[in-house]
């Protein structure tokens, strides 16, 4: 009886405090009546990186910084492994010759041509694509494409986009937090300050997109659920 009272009390507390619920979303599958999160089976994940430039500069620096941001999450496993620069510039002409090797590939799309060939628009700052087996819930390969045709600026920050796309590669989808913020004047309850919008919000931050370089609590909660430390 005492135990049941304790259990019911906990349930009551859970329902009274919506702050326990986060807005991150996670890739998932309902295959054969079984619900699974889509995630990598083994971590860290190694990446092959485009040997070309990104906005005319060496893109590996941006990739390294983005990796470090995710690897710094103390409550999640180390996710980003080695970064190997390919001896070639990946373009729309040779993009589909790259073999899939159960790892990640990072492409610098200098002209936007690769994105276009995939049916995506010039408005796309970046994309994170995963290949997965929905029966096992395992991500087997991943692809990040960064649009180098859109110059990095205070409102379209390349590093923020890269950190964001890595989030998708790990298995995070977009968060709902940030839709109502003090920048877009959308009416709603307690609009969030733009500096607090999670990195996994789907759009650039028109106030200062560099805010997306650092992960917020919502991002950290999501990745920690997927890949808990120990």
């Amino acid at each position, binding site marked *: 009886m005492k135990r049941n009272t304790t259990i019911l009390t906990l349930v009551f507390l859970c329902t009274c405090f919506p702050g326990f619920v986060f807005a991150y979303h996670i890739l998932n599958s309902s295959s054969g009546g079984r619900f699974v999160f889509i995630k990598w089976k083994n971590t860290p994940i190694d990446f092959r990186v485009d040997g070309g430039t990104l906005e005319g500069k060496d893109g590996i620096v941006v990739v390294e910084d983005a990796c470090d941001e995710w690897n710094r999450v103390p409550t999640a496993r180390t996710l980003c492994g080695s970064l190997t620069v390919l001896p070639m510039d990946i373009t729309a002409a040779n993009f589909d010759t790259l073999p899939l090797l159960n790892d990640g590939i990072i492409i610098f799309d200098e002209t936007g041509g690769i994105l276009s060939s995939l049916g995506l628009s010039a408005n796309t700052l970046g994309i994170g694509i995963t290949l997965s*087996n929905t029966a096992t819930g395992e991500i087997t390969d991943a692809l990040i494409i960064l649009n180098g045709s859109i110059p990095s600026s205070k409102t379209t920050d390349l590093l923020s986009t890269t950190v964001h796309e890595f989030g998708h590669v790990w298995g995070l989808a977009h968060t709902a937090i940030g839709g109502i913020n003090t920048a877009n004047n959308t009416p709603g309850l307690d609009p969030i300050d733009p500096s607090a919008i999670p990195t996994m919000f789907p759009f650039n931050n028109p106030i200062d997109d560099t805010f997306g370089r650092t992960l917020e609590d919502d991002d950290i909660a999501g990745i920690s659920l997927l890949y808990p430390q120990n």
Partner: protein
Amino acid sequence: MIDFNQGFLNILSYFIIVMVCMFSFSCSKSYATREFSNSTLEMARKSEHVVVAKCISSKSSWDEKHKFIFTYTTFSVEEVVKGETVGDDITLRIIGGQVGDTRVDVPDKPEFLQEEEVILFLGPKNPDGYPTLSSLEKGVLRLKVDEVSGEKIVTTPVTGIKILIKDTENPAPSENGVLLEDLIYSIKKSLQ
């Protein structure tokens, strides 16, 4: 008697806990691009074409090299709101989809149902001849037929454009959604 009640209470407690936990973790289909936060009007300005179309078919399949999965969606064009004529049918080819147990997740890739009517904001054709969506997330506005009035209504939020009643300068009421004809009129007027 007492044992039966306690056993039932145990089961009920665990059931409630499971239900609360399930509702606490909301998960959805994946979304994986990062894009400009364009309003509807900005999207119309940036697009080469804006069309009202009906989905005829949508199918996913492997590419020729069996590396990626693409989804091919064919639409019959009902009205061209912006741009030159695009023909009676258009087909979008967008990376992403599922074949068997293999899934290629492309966040924000829109899904279409057969017979569904939409407004598409289209960019230039890619080298393979397929038109691109100006934005995955905001490049599609969904339509439905109002059951009472029979008029077509835009169900996706419309932003950054003043909606006028067709053929007038009067603002359209917003309580029951944006009428398709009002949105088309307002887009054309704003782009003049």
